[in-house]
């Protein structure tokens, strides 16, 4: 027998296998007839007007427009002129709970997500305290069952306190419901520690999501290293800081036959490394954020701390490479890295302001306005990448197909709005797209069978 015979990849890829680990507040399942919307679900092969009945938490019927009768007690949504997509899934959200509930909590974070069309999210463990024990994880899950508007999955840290020195009790955390492991916000600086995490992954059976940068190369950098950082005199984070760590970790994953997920890819070089690794059969998935897909370090010229995040906004060739990566599927999903920060912290000088931007409420509209409307990416492809965020972690991908769990967002592709004009559902306002006029507005989100968001001005039909 070969040394690896009988060993299988961690079974995290089985669609829907971990759906049970998501939590949300108990809410009665809605009965809804959505009439006349343009259904778009590339995975299910749906692209055209249809009626949709949601009942008992599932898609009960899909039929030709006008063909379906509203069931008893159903809410009728006249969705003429609107698009219905499967609700999105964000694998990368900072809910800031526990520790910084002034910036976000489970209720406001999931409300912001629902307002952005999301039906499920994964929360990052870099809280205070860090989610590195089953007791912290279980208390968070309990809170989510009381507060979360949409299903939330919690990730746990790879190392105790995210210090990179000692593995967490990954097996027990997995049993307690950790959906994945990540030290997000920090890289695993030791290759030896990364290797041990991959070995232990066989026991924990969860994906490992990686924030990739080499601390020695990033040093005290605060923005992308390039012409703009040279002009501003600010220490730069070179793009290879990310790429060399990804190169290291795909080699380790290949050697240990593990599975990894690369978070918030920002650099052209990283996309190249990922392409080669996937071609070689390494089990590596990756995500891109709307801000890295749409903005560059040019935004930093005026030192507005709203454009400070990690990884930093990079140069135009990087942005183009990310768009190509989303198109080709090397970057298989879009994640917001929604990172709320208190207003007073973002009002500090750029170099000392914290890194991160919010993004749940603007992700779809920003991508639609900047990439779909100009014809750079297909609408169907963008919707697919927005819904695919749970797939690397063994969560099911929402679909509008009959009998699937009812996860739908209704979007008005004609609606123009200014980001921030009506405030935010999030508790924080450090949005990278604040003040921009965007096209495409989420009118309603149904997550796992219940209405999680309804725009206040969105008229609902009579109850049948």
């Amino acid at each position, binding site marked *: 027998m070969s040394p690896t015979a009988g060993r299988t990849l961690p079974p995290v890829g089985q669609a829907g296998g971990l759906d049970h680990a998501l939590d949300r507040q108990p809410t009665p399942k809605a009965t809804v007839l959505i009439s006349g919307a343009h259904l778009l679900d590339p995975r299910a092969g749906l692209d055209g007007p249809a009626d949709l009945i949601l009942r008992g938490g599932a898609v009960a019927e899909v039929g030709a427009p006008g063909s379906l009768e509203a069931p008893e007690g159903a809410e009728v949504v006249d969705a003429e002129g609107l698009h219905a997509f499967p609700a999105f899934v964000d694998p990368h959200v900072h809910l800031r709970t526990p520790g910084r509930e002034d910036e976000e909590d489970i209720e406001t974070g999931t409300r912001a997500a629902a307002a952005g069309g999301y039906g499920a999210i994964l929360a990052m463990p870099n809280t205070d305290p860090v989610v590195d024990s089953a007791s912290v994880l279980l208390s968070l899950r309990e809170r989510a069952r009381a507060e979360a508007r949409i299903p939330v999955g919690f990730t746990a840290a790879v190392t105790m306190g995210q210090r990179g020195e000692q593995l967490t009790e990954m097996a027990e955390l997995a049993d307690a419901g950790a959906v994945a492991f990540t030290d997000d916000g920090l890289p695993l600086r030791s290759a030896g520690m990364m290797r041990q995490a991959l070995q232990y992954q066989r026991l924990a059976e969860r994906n490992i999501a990686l924030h990739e940068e080499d601390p020695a190369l990033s040093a005290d950098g605060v923005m992308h*290293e390039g*012409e703009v950082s*040279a*002009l501003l005199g*600010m220490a730069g984070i070179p793009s290879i800081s990310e790429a060399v760590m990804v190169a290291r970790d795909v080699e380790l994953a290949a050697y240990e036959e593990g599975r990894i997920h690369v978070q918030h890819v920002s650099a052209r070089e990283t996309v190249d490394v990922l392409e080669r690794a996937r071609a070689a059969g390494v089990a590596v998935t990756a995500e891109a954020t709307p801000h890295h897909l749409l903005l560059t370090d040019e935004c930093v010229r005026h*030192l507005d701390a709203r454009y400070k995040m990690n990884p930093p906004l990079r140069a135009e060739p990087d942005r183009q490479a990310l768009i190509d990566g989303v198109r080709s599927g090397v970057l298989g999903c879009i994640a917001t890295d929604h990172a709320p920060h208190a207003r007073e912290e973002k*009002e*500090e000088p750029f170099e000392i302001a914290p890194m991160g931007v919010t993004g749940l409420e603007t992700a779809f509209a920003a991508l639609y306005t900047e990439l779909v409307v100009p014809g750079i990416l297909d609408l169907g492809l963008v919707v697919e990448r927005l819904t695919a965020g749970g797939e690397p972690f063994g969560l099911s991908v929402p679909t509008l197909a009959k009998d699937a769990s009812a996860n739908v967002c209704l979007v008005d592709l004609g609606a123009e709005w200014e980001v921030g004009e009506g405030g935010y559902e999030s508790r924080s306002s450090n949005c990278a797209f604040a*003040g921009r006029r965007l096209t495409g507005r989420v009118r309603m989100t149904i997550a796992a069978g219940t209405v999680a968001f309804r725009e206040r001005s969105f008229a609902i039909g009579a109850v049948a």
Partner: protein
Amino acid sequence: MKRHLLSIDDLTREDIERVLGRAESFAEVSGREIKKVPTLRGRTVINLFYEASTRTSSSFELAAKRLSADLVSVKAAGSSVDKGESLKDTIQTLSAYDPAAIVFRSPHAGAAGLVARWTRASVINAGDGKHEHPTQALLDLYTLRRRVGRLEGLNVWIVGDVLHSRVARSNILAFGRMGCQVTVCGPPTLIPRGVESLGCEVRTTLDDLGEADVVYALRMQHERMAGSFVPSLREYATRYQIDGRRLAPNQLVMHPGPVNRGVELSAEVIDSPQALITHQVESGVVVRMAVLYELLAGGPPADLMQGHAPLSAEASEPQPA
């Protein structure tokens, strides 16, 4: 001129010419026994320094006093900053005294720009982190023009730690704007990637130093060498020190101070008549008087009568992109 002086980029060539010309006329005042003019009588200038400074803060103080302004100097140590007050609150507090100008030094890039959003006063950047130090560049231009008689066409080499130098960034822009040809030179670890985009050439040896009319040496900052940007100051001095062997008789030497004798410049060069270093310090006061004058009193008379501009909407809130 714009209302604030945050970056050399805020100045057109004509603006710079005006400041230099104004400085010339103040130089005449400085030669008198009574070195004071009443231009800014009744107006308040606040010197707010979040970082140690000797020559910049004292020359701004003298400049404001010689223009008859009321001057308040605030240093971060011992002030409410020590008690944890945020920059925004400090600025709003000081702005309540209705200053005409705030001269601001900070260890953080872009901090002067932030201050400008929160006050009605004109903000003068007296150094923000490694970003810019525009009044240093202006006094350098002034000093050099006094000596040579022109700036156009001069070949200027800026030598040393360009990576960590706000003076380098402001001077690359300023010399370039006045028609000089600018070359930066230093160890590759101390040259920021992409610096060519500021409009300069990059060299890593002094081999072609002979082409320079002016050699502008930068301070080698011991405190920043902890990250081992160079193996040793000794090796640095061997390769990059401007000394009597390397300097031709027709070349001029400048330095923003304070100098590390025997590191970036040899003692013989510092003390030679080719060195403009003490002239640079002297120019500090008149050039800063000129900057205060042009920002606060340089406009048409109507402006003077109305005082400063009303607080616009954009001054209070960060603007969306």
